[in-house]
């Protein structure tokens, strides 16, 4: 039975690698500190594998077919995708996969009525590349990437993301190996990629959302943080927080907020959180 040993969430905005130095010095210092702390916490939990929940920005799937969830089941993951490497200012990385666990998610998920698409060769943009650059810099921890669609309508609801998280928690617990699993969520906070408010950050929403996480009351969060509320705070981008809500289902109790920066320069509300207790 696999065991969850770490649960954290962070922003993956492209500016965090692509034009890091364009934010004010105090935001750079704060981001580096929080990302360093996340890396240390991750290492201290001695994970055998990271299951990372991100979103597909119309990279792997064309607009005529956008599965709700997709699992990368390959033996190795190579990124960033061509053309995105220049945007993210990152050179190519190769991270080992964990095909046995990834394939278990897909097949065992299906037995539990969860439709997970899969790709043997997945492409990676900021959603996976930015968190791996900071948290898995030597690519030593195997990775199972899981992307969701929160960009192309219809966008799933927070209730749905939480329900999928709860189901995946059971699927991972049912894995026959004894792997120590770190679950990571990436995306958010408020931003509107490519929309009329492309350069906007809704600090009030971000602080309110982080406060709900600090309170650790899942039912209240799901009642108050509706999809409509997320869309108001930045359409087509803030809903990346669905990945955080999915990972919330792996946890109990309050989240620790490690940092928050309303970093318009990096083009999103930028936050890092960690949970200390895991749902069984």
């Amino acid at each position, binding site marked *: 039975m696999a065991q969850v040993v770490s649960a954290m969430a962070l922003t993956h905005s492209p500016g965090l690698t692509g034009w890091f130095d364009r934010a004010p010095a105090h*935001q750079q210092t704060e981001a580096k500190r929080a990302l360093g702390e996340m890396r240390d916490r991750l290492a201290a939990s001695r994970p055998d594998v990271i299951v990372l929940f991100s979103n597909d920005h119309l990279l792997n799937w064309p607009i005529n077919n956008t599965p709700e969830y997709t699992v990368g089941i390959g033996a190795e993951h190579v990124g960033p995708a061509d053309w995105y490497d220049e945007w993210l200012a990152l050179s190519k990385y190769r991270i080992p996969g964990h095909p046995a666990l990834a394939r278990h998610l897909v097949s065992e998920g299906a037995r539990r009525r969860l439709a997970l698409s899969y790709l043997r060769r997945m492409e990676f943009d900021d959603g996976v590349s930015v968190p791996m650059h900071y948290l898995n810099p030597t690519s030593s921890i195997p990775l199972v990437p899981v992307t969701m669609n929160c960009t192309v309508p219809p*966008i799933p609801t927070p209730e749905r993301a939480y329900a999928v998280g709860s189901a995946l928690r059971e699927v991972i617990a049912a894995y026959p190996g004894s792997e120590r699993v770190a679950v990571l969520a990436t995306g958010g906070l408020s931003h509107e990629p490519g929309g009329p408010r492309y350069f906007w950050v809704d600090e009030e929403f971000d602080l309110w959302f982080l406060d709900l996480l600090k309170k650790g009351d899942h039912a209240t969060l799901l009642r108050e943080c509706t999809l409509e509320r997320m869309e108001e705070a930045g*359409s087509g981008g803030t809903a990346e927080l669905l990945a955080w809500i999915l990972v919330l289902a792996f946890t109990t109790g309050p989240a620790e907020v490690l940092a928050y920066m309303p970093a318009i320069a990096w083009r999103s509300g930028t936050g890092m959180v960690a949970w200390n207790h895991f749902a069984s």
Partner: protein
Amino acid sequence: MGSVERCDKTLPLNEMIFHVRRDAALRARWLTDLEGLAREFGLSAEEYAALRDHDVRRLHELGVHQYYVPQILRLFYGAAANSNSHPALAAYQRAYPAESERALRLQAELERRDR
């Protein structure tokens, strides 16, 4: 719901961008033969004109998925150092002057306050 809901999922331009981004040969043709590409992917005259003119607002109005619009601009202007002062993003300031100005004012305010 927000602006992302305005997207026309069946717009040929939305199919075209997906393929161009993934293919180095098509990316090169973007700069030399945009009109030919537009024809091959079945774009309407309006879609082609909005693309050619880098007209962010018109692209939105036609139903281009908003996530694709900055990618369209990067295909024209280059993807490196895509910060808020990148020439590609001046197209947003032309299309949405009020929103952009308000956002950049907020940025200055936030950065001053937190220092």
